């Protein structure tokens, strides 16, 4: 029995019994099945789900932007009494922008890189034949002021690359709001942004929504964001609605098992448990590490310097997990890449068990490589698409002199250990899901029995429930093999979950470091406090996890 709700007078958008079919050969026949929900006047409706849940599909159908081969086969989408599914492309186009605005996930690619910001906003008016060119510019400026861009007179003449991610997303919002739509569709608008920026954008959307009395359909995978912004929420899984209702009851007392699991999977709700910090000799000592990136200057262009790391010092004990937390550009990834020596630090020492790795080169470096391994961020890019999984894991030991047969056998055992089964050896990476690939990446990192593993945003690209599983696996392996981990992440919630100690970085410097508990409960520095405050859904009511 599909979950439905009664229609009332103040409904802006009403989706009824919607079925959307996927092309042949997809993993299921229907992208969404029997989906019915409404967006009422002046409310924020959050559609939540993990990747592949079909959460964006209904929104695409509303906008008439369904991809080729994907069609709405049943049901209706009523907007102001009109069935949007019955509209011609031309009628749809007239509606887009004018009555329904949309914001996308990736603010960089959603803007034309070769057009000034003002011209792009003016284009929205032009597309609907409104105002004279001069008025359009004036309107664009008003909009930029409204969305709170600093120095709007300058920003209007800027190209997208001159703006930060958050500012670009504000421009996108300005474009979506240009014609004062009744309904705003926001498809993961904050996923690509840093936490502090995300908090600002959420604030802006809520603010604009209230000021203009718009309705917002907000698509997200993050329950933290839901808690922060939603009036009502619709949880989707495998193309079906599993739960629908006001935000408070859903978050506090979820009825469906899947919703409960999703909410429980958010690492944020747990204040980090107290962990015994061991007082053994440090395994890794980083002393005064510096790294400056220089871009080669051109003919008339001065060279540019970016100080990615400035006098970074920290230690990591054997068997300890240290989290490096920071926003993009904080130098946290550069630090990780220096530790595994994918980057060459300019100065400073990297002592691993007393051996200085920082200045090794060539063959000497290659011989030490096996001691520090890395788990990469992108489960899709970190495996060679043309190499079988077993070989991908075995090539490390082979390069270090293990016979091929023995290395492949060990690869099978490792795959078993990370929960994929030894039969995975013969398969290619594309046959696995993102979470499974990340397990392969972990097995590969373990293959050389490293003393230290650097995990660079290892779970950031994964859905929350998968994220929880991979974190669990890491935790388990850590106990079993007494691994030492350097865990780099932008997500404080994840760091709280797995780290013994946390190091907070900003602009290439260490701002604060301490035990996880200490950082979360009693942050000393203002920046750390800001970061903590920006975590979405931190103060919102959330169900007690069973």
């Amino acid at each position, binding site marked *: 029995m599909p979950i439905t709700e009664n229609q009332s007078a103040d409904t802006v958008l009403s989706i009824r019994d919607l079925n959307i079919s996927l092309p042949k*050969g997809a993993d299921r026949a229907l992208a969404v099945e029997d989906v019915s929900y409404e967006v009422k006047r002046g409310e924020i409706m959050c559609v939540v789900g993990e990747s592949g849940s079909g959460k964006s599909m209904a929104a695409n159908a509303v906008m008439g932007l369904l991809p080729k081969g994907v069609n709405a086969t049943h049901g209706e989408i009523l907007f102001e009494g009109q069935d949007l599914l019955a509209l011609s492309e031309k009628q749809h186009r007239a509606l887009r922008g004018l009555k329904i605005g949309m914001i996308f996930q990736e603010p960089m690619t959603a803007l034309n890189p070769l057009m000034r910001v003002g011209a792009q906003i003016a284009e929205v008016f032009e597309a609907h034949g409104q105002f004279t060119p001069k008025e359009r510019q004036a309107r664009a400026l008003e909009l930029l002021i409204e969305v709170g861009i600093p120095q709007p007179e300058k920003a209007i003449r800027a190209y997208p690359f001159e703006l930060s991610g958050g500012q670009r997303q504000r421009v996108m919002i300005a474009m979506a709001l240009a014609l004062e739509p009744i309904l705003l569709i926001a498809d993961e608008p904050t996923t690509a942004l840093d936490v502090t920026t995300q908090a600002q954008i959420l604030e802006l959307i809520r603010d604009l929504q209230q000021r203009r009395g718009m309705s917002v359909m907000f698509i997200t995978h993050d329950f933290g964001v839901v808690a922060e912004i939603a009036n009502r929420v619709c949880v989707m899984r495998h193309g079906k609605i599993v739960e629908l209702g006001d935000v408070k009851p859903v978050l506090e007392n979820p009825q469906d098992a899947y919703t409960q699991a999703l909410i429980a999977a958010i690492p944020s709700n747990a204040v980090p448990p107290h962990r015994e910090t061991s007082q053994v000799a440090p395994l890794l000592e980083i002393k005064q590490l510096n790294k400056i990136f220089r871009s080669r200057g051109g003919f008339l262009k001065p060279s540019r310097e970016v100080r990615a790391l400035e006098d970074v010092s920290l230690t990591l004990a054997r068997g300890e997990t240290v989290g490096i937390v920071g926003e993009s550009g904080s130098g946290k990834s550069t630090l990780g890449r220096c530790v*595994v020596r*994918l980057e060459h630090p300019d100065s400073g020492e990297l002592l691993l068990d007393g051996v200085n790795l920082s200045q090794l080169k060539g063959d000497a470096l*290659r*011989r030490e*490589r*096996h001691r*520090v*391994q*890395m788990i*990469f*961020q*992108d489960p899709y*890019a*970190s*495996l*060679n*698409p*043309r*190499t079988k999984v077993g070989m*991908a894991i075995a*090539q*490390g030991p082979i*390069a*270090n002199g293990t016979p091929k047969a023995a290395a492949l056998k060990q690869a099978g055992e490792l795959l078993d250990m990370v929960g994929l089964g030894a039969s995975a050896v013969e398969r*290619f990476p*594309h*046959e696995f899901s993102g979470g499974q690939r990340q397990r392969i*990446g972990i097995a*590969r990192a373990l*293959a*050389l029995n490293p003393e230290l593993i650097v995990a660079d945003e290892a779970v950031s690209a994964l859905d929350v429930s998968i994220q929880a599983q991979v974190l669990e696996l890491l935790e388990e392996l850590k106990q079993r093999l007494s691994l030492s981990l350097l865990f780099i992440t932008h997500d404080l919630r994840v760091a709280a979950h797995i780290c013994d100690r946390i190091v907070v970085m900003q602009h290439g410097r260490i701002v604060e470091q301490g035990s996880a508990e200490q950082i979360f409960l009693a942050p000393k520095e203002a920046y750390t406090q800001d970061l903590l405050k920006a975590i979405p859904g931190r103060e919102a009511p959330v169900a007690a996890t069973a």
Partner: protein
Amino acid sequence: MSFFARFAQNRGALVGLIILLLIIAMAILAPLLFPESPWRMVQRPFLPPLSQDGFPLGTDTMGRNVASGLMHGAWVSLLIGLVSTSVALLIGVPLGAIAGYYGGIIDDVLMRFTEFFQTIPNFALAIVLVAIMQPSITSIVLAIAIVSWPPVARLVRAEFMSLRNREYVEAARLVGQSNTTIILRQILPNTLSPIIVLASLMVATAILLESALSFLGLGDPNVMSWGYMIGAARTVIRQAWWLSFFPGVAILLTVLALNLVGEGLDDALNPKLSRER
């Protein structure tokens, strides 16, 4: 699934392979079906196709048998196309791979060397080379290879530059694989698709380049080729269309077949596509 079965799943590739096999069969059967030299004048000139028994495609300006020329020419054209492309790949791929992988000064030196070849017009260089070395199949193959490797080097370099910083390459570096292993095992297999596509086009260009050289009288005087036939027929194209039409169709079919086969090979070598179908 075997490699051939994967290859055969692509219909076009199968058609291409069949055409290619037919052309090879033509080349092999030529001495049996037309034991006489294709250069011999055997009938009166300008005999249209199907007008007389034994001359299904007519005769050319000098009374030579077009069908015989076409079959004998298949061998030369294929040989020149395939061998010169292989030689060009042998020069271009390693140079491009090294330049793209190592970057820096090595890249600068190799690319300036490549540009040196690119600044000279292809055809002019080929003429000069053949003229110096005396026209023969070997010199033609070599000349064509020398003028056509720079684009290969450029393409491979660009692919290597974009692939060398992929995470899986970094992972390979981290586990201690040597540079040679990384180049051969990690990056090169992933550059195969564009190389195959380019190579199949290069075979076509080589056949055309040979025909242009023959047209200028720089072909191997001992062998009949499609290029020579078209070149010789150009002046009479309005009186005797069949003289340039049939060799032209032969070149078109060969190039098409090679492209289809190249595409099929690419699909068959790509693990992702082969299992999804």
